[in-house]
């Protein structure tokens, strides 16, 4: 199970236990993603898209089924193994930006490098990314002094600073106005096109999904359609 796919799942299932009740979130997901793809995942609330995102990102283990990300079998990975996956293989962009409020934008990016064990200065490619994101002038501000659009761009910079194989974006435009949403989506497209960055993006917004190469529709814990 590899065949040139960077993400590959087979009959992936996840059941959460809420009190004494088992709640199935994923009911057998088969997904294959090639390196360099930009994939949108859409679906109503409770369709399991966030759970899929959390499993691929190594934030939670699957209940059953197979899942391989960048050559690693996540079903057998320990907690420490998943931590290492988050450190080097995946980068997250969240709807609520999730920047550390006490640190400047620059330090928010630096902390991701530090955690990944990368203590040298950012490379020239990353400097180019900062220019691409248009946030070079805002790096010494703390998140509360930045607009939503700027915060999300910092979050994108932080997510890709360690050159992850996969960028996972969970509703990256959910908290942004139309103009900033468009800017962020264009940045994601640019990253995908220029750097060949593999991107998985969860969204509710069909316009946002249109930026991706392919859209996967989910409902009730299953993939129901690919467009």
């Amino acid at each position: 199970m590899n065949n040139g796919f960077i993400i590959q799942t087979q009959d992936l299932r996840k059941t959460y236990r809420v009190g004494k009740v088992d709640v199935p979130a994923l009911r057998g997901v088969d997904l294959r993603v090639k390196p360099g793809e930009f994939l949108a995942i859409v679906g109503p609330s409770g369709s399991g898209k966030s759970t899929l995102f959390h499993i691929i990102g190594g934030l939670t283990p699957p209940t059953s089924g197979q899942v391989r990300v960048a050559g690693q079998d996540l079903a057998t990975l320990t907690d420490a193994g998943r931590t290492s996956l988050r450190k080097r293989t995946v980068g997250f962009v969240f709807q609520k930006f999730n920047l550390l409020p006490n640190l400047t934008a620059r330090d928010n990016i630096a902390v991701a490098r530090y955690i990944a064990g990368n203590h040298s200065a950012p490379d020239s490619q990353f400097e180019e990314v900062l220019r691409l994101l248009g946030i070079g002038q805002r790096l010494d501000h703390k998140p509360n002094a930045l607009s939503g659009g700027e915060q999300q761009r910092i979050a994108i910079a932080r997510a890709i600073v360690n050159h992850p194989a996969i960028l996972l974006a969970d509703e990256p435009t959910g908290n942004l106005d139309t103009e900033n949403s468009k800017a962020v989506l264009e940045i994601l497209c640019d990253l995908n096109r220029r750097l060949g960055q593999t991107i998985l993006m969860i969204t509710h917004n069909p316009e946002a999904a249109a930026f991706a190469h392919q859209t996967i529709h989910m409902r009730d814990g299953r993939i129901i359609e690919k467009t």
Partner: protein
Amino acid sequence: MTTKLVFENLKHKPMRSLLSFLLIGVPVTLILTLVGLANGMLQDSQNRARGVGADLVVRGSGATSVVNLGPPAVRESYVKFLATEVPHVTMATGVVNHLVDFPVVMTGIYPEQFDRMSGGFEYVDGHQLSGPDDILVDRLYAAQKMLHLGQTFSLINHDWHVVGIIEGGKLARIVVQAPTLQYIDSIQGEVSQIWVKLDNPANDDAVVKDIESRTDLKVNTMEEFTALWSVGNIHGVTEFIYVIMGIGVVIGFAVVCLSMYMSVLQRTREIGILKSLGASKTFILRIILAEAVVLGIGGTVIGILMSYGAWWLIRAFVPASLPMIIMYSWWPIAGAVTLVGALLGALYPGLSAARHDPIEALAYE
């Protein structure tokens, strides 16, 4: 980067950080003040004993502790015996002690004998004892009790007439005539201690042996006697300091535990963010423990500063009763006690933060 995370967190909640520093500082101040007082009192007593100018101290056979605050235990007839029957002894004088309020002791002397032995008191004002109800007080005690020359005041149910204010550093802070004190205490014919001067201090060991072989008295050279004035030799003081250190650890533990627990709760989402970036449990725990170390060090510094405050207050209000000194050698000990408390206190919040589920932490509002 760990340092930056820690300091930015502390800066982000300045009131929490300041309160933690202050609270952690309290046991440090307690320890330093207590040790400073214990050592200050002992040092003060040593100095005053040396100031007498004697070579030997003779006490009753029952004397166990150097802090002899009990009733006099030596028959006064020994004074004459020592002065006349023991070779090398040039002079002997008995004193009577009466505890006024701990640690201040009133001492009854035979002025003429005592002046010959010690060279006399140094008078800031007034003159030596002459009448039976005359009293000398030292500068610090006079300042503390607002006493002045010529004043009559009551102490141990007796009216005394202040005839002299003396410099401290010799024998006692409050000095009266021995017979008056013996009369008040109904112990005529007995003294608390006998101070003995020799023709040559080099003979002290031989004289000690000589006296002890001929009587049941307890004799110490001045060197031995002052060495007895150490914290370890005073019953209960060491234990008391240990108790205060234990309380210090507990307070440091409780303050840091509460503070860090609140902090971890407030930062649940941030911990989730760090975990999503690949931060390991060790990394999270390290940040929390590093913050506790900073709180511990900051608290120690504040505690040391507050101990100077205590020192100043004591000097200003009760310089005679509580002669406190600053014990630099105890700074690292107080600091270590605080750090142990702080680290223990940070362990539970740190471990609970490290164990946070990243998804739940990220969803925390």
